[in-house]
Structure formats: C-alpha cells, structure tokens
C-alpha cells in the first residue's frame, strides 16, 4: 500500500513537470542563425532572418527572408508564415543592425524581447552594417559557407587579431546600461566582399558616433581588456626623411603583455586619469637597418611616442564625440565615488572635460629569431 502510494506520488510529481510543453524536434525547427534589423527609405522597420535548410530536395542550403514588421516578436510570426519550420531564436550567431537604424535614437528598445525571452540566444555577435542589411543577407559568395556561419567565423577570427571587438548581445546590454562607459560593436561593410571595417563606437543612447579602424582597435582593446588574443602593431619609423622609396621604413611589433594601471582622481573640478601602461613587446618586422643591441632604448622611446600619439588621437576623438568606450567611468566610480555620484547620469559629458594622461612604458623583450 505504501509502495503504491509512493509510486502514485512520484507519477504526479513527474507529470507536473513542464518539460513536454516546449518540445520541438530539431527537424521541425527553422534555426535563425542571423537576424538583421534595418530601416527603409520610408522609415519602416525591416527584419531579416537567415536560417539553414535541412532538405535534400532543396538546392540552396540556406534561406534568407526580409519582412516588414514593427517588433521582433511580430516579425517571428511573419517568418512562421513563410518558413517551413518553427522559427527559433536559440541559435542566433550574428545580430545585425543597419546603419540607418543605428542612427535613429532608441533603436535599442527594439531588442527588448532578446533579453526578456530566456530562449533567445544572447551570445550572438552584435554587428553594425554599413548599407542596406538586405545586401548582407542576400550575398552568398560561392566560395564561402552559409553567410551566417561565414560572418561568425569572420568576426571571431578578426577579434582574435584585435581588428575589431566582439560584443555579444549580452555584453551590449551591459555596455548600454553601464553608466560609466559607452558601447562599441563590430562594424561590417560590403563592396564585393563582406569586410570587417573596424569598430563602431556608439553613444550613450546607442546611436552611431564614429568608426575606428582595424589599426586603431587594438589600442581600444588594450585599454579595455589588457591583452587578449594577438596584438600586432605597425608604425612608420620616424627619422625625419621619409623619402619616396618603395620600401618604407616601417617597424612592426607584437605586444606580448600589457600591465595597465589606471588611477582616477578629481582635480580642480575635473576628473583626471593616469594610465600607466607597461608593455612588453617583441619586434616582428623591421624594414631598415638598426643596431638593436646598442640603441634599443632609443627604439623603445620611439615606440612609446607612437603609442602615446595614437592614444591621444583616439581619446581626443572620443572626448569630442562625448563617448567613453574605454570605460574610464568605471575607474571614476571606483576611485572618486563622491564626485562620480554627482555626475553619474551625465558621464559622457563629464568625460569630455576630463584629462587623460597615458604613460606608455615599452620594454623590448624580443627581436625575432634573426640577428
């Protein structure tokens, strides 16, 4: 009797599980791998989706659709009217926002469902696309895999070389709501081929502010994360007489390690950041003769100067645009909280007034394997 009761109880408990409700077999699903948002000329919202087709009879293994809708959820319903499976958002790899939409304020509100629905993949890479998103979705070069997979790989590997940032939807959410910094996302462009352009820096509200190139992104990355992936920098060697030779005097180096120390103080009514950067570098390319053994200190100074110059350029640009993709605000909050508390809702404007002093300290640790 007691045993029967136990079994009955277990069955009741088991049946109350919600498991079987959301069951969808993989082959009944249309997995959206890439989702795009854009505005057309009439300022109507366009939604794009790209998903793989699992069918032997289908000639093309990937389907792309674009429709007009007013929200992501509504768009899902529209897609379900077209695609054969149930549209699912659990495997989105790339989330693309068109340039026109990115320039409108409050576009981020469209993303609400992404964070509200737990089944939405928040690991998708955020991308800003220069041009009509339609072009991106319907470009399928024969030498490349499905466009969604191609872009995924493209962004990931570009990020490994620090040519661009890799901001997931989750990370974007943080950057958007973090008062002490402004967001930055990957920027793509397409002429003949889809190409990584660098990093798009967004304003506090998420609107497009400026673009920094792939050459500049490493500097941003070093300030943001220290050293992740391979950082390879290249610069012309300044010796006053850069002639018109074909082989220019250039020097390239790896950054093997970065130790940064950021100190925030509040001096004379403005924030001041002292960034102490210790870089261990290794020369990877030198297209001119130079006596490294004797003059390596000179070389270190040259590199330091170049790094400082780059940072000054970058930071001045950001301050002019009132954006802080570096997250200096986080240090302000940490080191000068009372002052931060007063201006926390207006950080970008405050940052525009702040002083940033970068002190790079370069040590050459390696020269490559040739003498």
């Amino acid at each position, binding site marked *: 009797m007691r045993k029967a009761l136990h079994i009955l109880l277990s069955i009741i408990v*088991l049946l109350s*599980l919600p*498991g*079987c409700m*959301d*069951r*969808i*077999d*993989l*082959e009944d*699903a249309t*997995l959206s*791998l890439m989702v795009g948002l854009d505005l057309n000329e009439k300022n109507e919202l366009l939604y794009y989706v790209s998903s*793989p087709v*699992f*069918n*032997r009879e289908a000639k093309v293994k990937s389907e792309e659709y674009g429709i007009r809708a007013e929200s992501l959820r509504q768009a899902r319903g529209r897609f379900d009217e077209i695609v054969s499976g149930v549209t*699912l958002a*659990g*495997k989105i*790899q790339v989330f693309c926002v068109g340039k026109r939409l990115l320039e409108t304020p409050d576009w981020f509100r469209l993303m609400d469902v992404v964070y509200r629905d737990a*089944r939405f*993949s928040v690991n998708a890479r955020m991308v800003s696309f220069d041009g009509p998103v339609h072009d991106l979705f319907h470009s399928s070069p024969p030498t490349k895999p499905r466009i969604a*997979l191609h872009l*995924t790989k493209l962004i990931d590997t570009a990020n490994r070389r620090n040519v661009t940032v890799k901001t997931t939807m989750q990370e974007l959410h943080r950057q958007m709501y973090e008062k002490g910094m402004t967001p930055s996302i990957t920027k793509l462009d397409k002429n003949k081929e889809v190409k990584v352009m660098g990093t798009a820096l967004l304003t506090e509200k998420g609107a497009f502010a400026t673009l920094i190139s792939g050459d500049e992104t490493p500097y941003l990355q070093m300030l943001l994360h220290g050293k992740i992936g391979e950082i390879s920098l290249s610069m012309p060697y300044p010796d006053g007489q850069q002639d018109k030779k074909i082989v220019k005097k250039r020097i390239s180096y790896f950054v093997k390690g970065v130790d940064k120390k950021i100190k925030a103080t509040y001096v004379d009514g403005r924030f001041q950041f002292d960034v102490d950067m210790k870089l261990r570098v290794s020369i990877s390319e030198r297209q001119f003769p130079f006596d490294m053994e004797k003059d390596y200190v000179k070389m270190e100074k040259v590199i330091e100067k170049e790094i400082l110059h780059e940072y000054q350029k970058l930071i001045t640009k950001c301050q002019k645009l009132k954006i802080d993709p570096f997250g200096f605000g986080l240090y302000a909050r940490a080191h000068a909280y009372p002052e931060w508390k007063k201006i926390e809702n207006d950080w970008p404007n405050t940052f525009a007034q702040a002083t940033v002093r970068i002190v790079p300290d370069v040590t050459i640790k390696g020269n490559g394997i040739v003498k």
Partner: protein
Amino acid sequence: MGPIQPIAEQLDENIRLLQNIFTMTPDLVIRTFESTFVEGPVALVYLSGLVDKSSINNNMLRPLLNPGEHTSTSIFDLLSVGAVSTVYDFGAVEEEILQGSSVLFVEGRTEALVAETHGWPQRAVEDPQLEASLKGAHQGFVETDIQNIALIRRYIPNRELKIKQFRIGARGRGKISVMYMDDIINPDVLKELEDRIKMIDIDAVINTGELEELIEDNPWSPFPQFVLTERPDSVASHLLQGRIAVIVDRSPSVLVGPTTFASFFQNVDDYSTRWPVATFIRLLRYLAFLVATFLPATYIALVSFNYEVIPIDLILSVGESRERVPFPPMLEAMLMELTLEMLREAGVRLPAPIGQTVGIVGGIVIGNAVVQAGVVSNIMVIVVAFTAIASFIIPNYDMASALRLLRFVMMGLAAMFGVVGIIIGLMTLIGHLISLESLGVPYGSPLAPTRFSDWKDLFVRLPLWNMKNRPLSARARQTKRQGDNRPQGDGQ
C-alpha cells in the same frame, strides 16, 4: 520424508526396501555377492552415472571379493576408499546414494557403510568465459564445488579459511558452501548471510544467480548486489579483503559479498598492470558507465528540447542527417537501441559460427543500410555505436546488463522531459545507489558514506604498497593488510 526407516538385519528385506524407494530407476545398481570376509551375502548399491567406476572396482569390489591374507576383523579396513562412514536408516541411505556415494549392506547388520565414490560427469578446468583476463590465471570455476573450493584453497593455504556447508532445496538438495577467513570476517555480516541462506525454502537452487536473487537485499533494484565471478583468483582476493564467498555446487560461478558499486568496476587485471595504466582504464570504465547510461538519452533530449547547447557546426550536420528520418528522435533511438540489444542477444545465444554471421549482418544493417535507406540518421548510428562499445567495457556482466536496462528508462525520461528528465533520472539513480545495501553494508561506499581511505582503490588505483589496510566497505574485523612494502631501491 516419512518416518525414519531403520536398516533391517536381513539383506533381502533391505533390498526390497531399496527397490521400493527407487522405483523406475534403471541407473540404480544393486550388486549382491558373497564376500569371503564376512558371513552371508553383501550388497553394494550405487547410481551408476554418479560414481567413479574404477574406484568401485578397485577399492570396493576387489578387496571384498578377494581379501587375500587380510587379517583385520573390521570390514571398514577392507575398503580402500578415503572416506567411509556408517548410516543407520534409509533416509540417510537414500540421500547418500543420490549424492553419488555407494552404500554397502551386510547381511545381519543394522547399519550400512557409505563410501565416497563420487565420479559424476565433469568438465575440465578452463579459461573463464565471461571474465577473460590477460595477465591473471586461466583457471575458471567448474561445476563441482569440491573442485572450486580446491581452486580457491590453492590461493589461500591457511587454516583460517573456513567453510560452512548447508544443504538447500527440498528436491534437489544442493550443497552450498560459505567460505570466509575466520580471523578477518565480520561475524555480523557472516551471520546475516547464513540466516538468509537458511531461510531459503525452495525445490532446488540450480544456479548461483538464483541463490543471489533469493538472498539479496533489494530484489527490486536493477543493480547486482553480489559479485558473481568465475575466477578463483578474484574470489581469493575478495576473501582476503574480508568478504564472504558462497559456492553453489553444480554452478560454475561463485557469489561474493558484501559488495559495493565500485567493486563492479574493478578487475583482477587492474592489480597486475602498472598503476597509472590501471587508473586510466578504470576511469575509462566510469566514463563508459555514464556513456552507456546517458548518451542516447542526451541525444534525444538535445535534439528535441535543448538544441541550443549543441555547437553550431554540429547542429547543422545533425540537422542535415535528421532531415531524412521520418521518426521522432525517441523512436529513432528506440529502434536502434532495440536492434542493438537483439543483435547482442542473438550473438550470445547462437552457436559461434552463426553468431559471427549475425554480427556481420547486423553491422552492415546498422552501419550502412539503415542510414542509406533514410530510416535512421548518421548521428544516431554513432550514438548507438558509442553506447555499445561503452557497455562492453564494463567488466562485470551483471552491471553491464543493469546499465542497458537503465538506458531505456533514461531515454523515456529524456523523450518526455528533456534534460530535466535526465537530471531527474540521474538524481533518482544516485538516490537509489546510496540507499542500496549489500548484506547490510552500504552499496555506495566509499563514495557515500565517504571513506577517503578507500579512495586509493576507487577512481585511481594507487600502487599496491600504498593500500596497507583492507577496504572499510568489507567491514573486516582485522584491517591490516600488509606491512611497509615500499621499495627503496638499491636492494635496501
């Protein structure tokens, strides 16, 4: 059995009584003859198939018929058989004859002489079938308990090795020998086992597996609660750890208890291979346990509920291969797993030459045709193959069978509730394993209850000199196993 029937003085009367007891028994031999040694006729009675003919001829008939210049007055001295005893009633006579002894009746005496002349059909000692070993001995148990005891005693020639014998079964009175090391064994555990054996009331215990079912702690569990082994070396090692072995006459496997879950993942070879290798293989076995139990269920759960966790490149190939399959994942998995089980069963039961054919046909069907026909996806075939391999790695057959059964339960749970179902299954499984007992000793030991000192021989097999004590799970009374055997090098 009726009232005790004493042996009569007259030989004729005794023979008549015998013929009453053994009617329709053509293999009963009653040899009546005159012996010069005693006055009056004597009768030698035995069952012809169960005795050793040459022993009867040389040791019984010859001295009785031709005593030579023997001067002894006792007929006892005449019989050149090892064990001779005297019985006084027909109940005992019947029993002895049925067990293969020969009984000698003498005119004018109310007792009969019983001589042990066993000699039933016997198999030679062979390599164990189920538990083949690379480096261990190649002697497996046979169907005669005396032989089996001898095989074990060869490993432990020690007077502390005790044997208690019971006779069980109303019709097939089988001999059951409980074997243990007297100074190591925990008396409570031994008593528990004896009580359970004594309580059995059954026609006959044919096999050790039957005995196991009659005395195990939880008959509803899929898990074996005793180790059934056919290796004398493994029994000897268990005995020395403080466990009890039960030898059932007429059955070539020996029951060992109390056991733990972990002991089903150990193997005699573990202790004769180098310890890092043994550790690696043992870890593989635990991995195989997980794979054999959960892999198909995980496949089902991932493909029909939580495709999000499958990496993007894999999901595309799974999708492509699932596309042609007309069945839902659960049915697909069921189909393949059942086919596999059928193949396995067919391969075991069929004679070896046909068994091979089954394997080849099955391999082709599963490996190729089913996929090409679009009935089952490629990934499913991989899953099935992995599970099959994994379940063959488990060294103990009973444990492997238990896992096979659990696999289907898990698949059902996964099909209904996805990953949540698998987790529920896993938790129930763990709960069951730690509540299970073998002879009152916790089955989950040394994991739960946690006995860290026993972990030296759990997931890793540390060097032998490291295991100075007997495992706690055996509940041994005397725990020291060895002294300091740590090799020092340089002959020091």
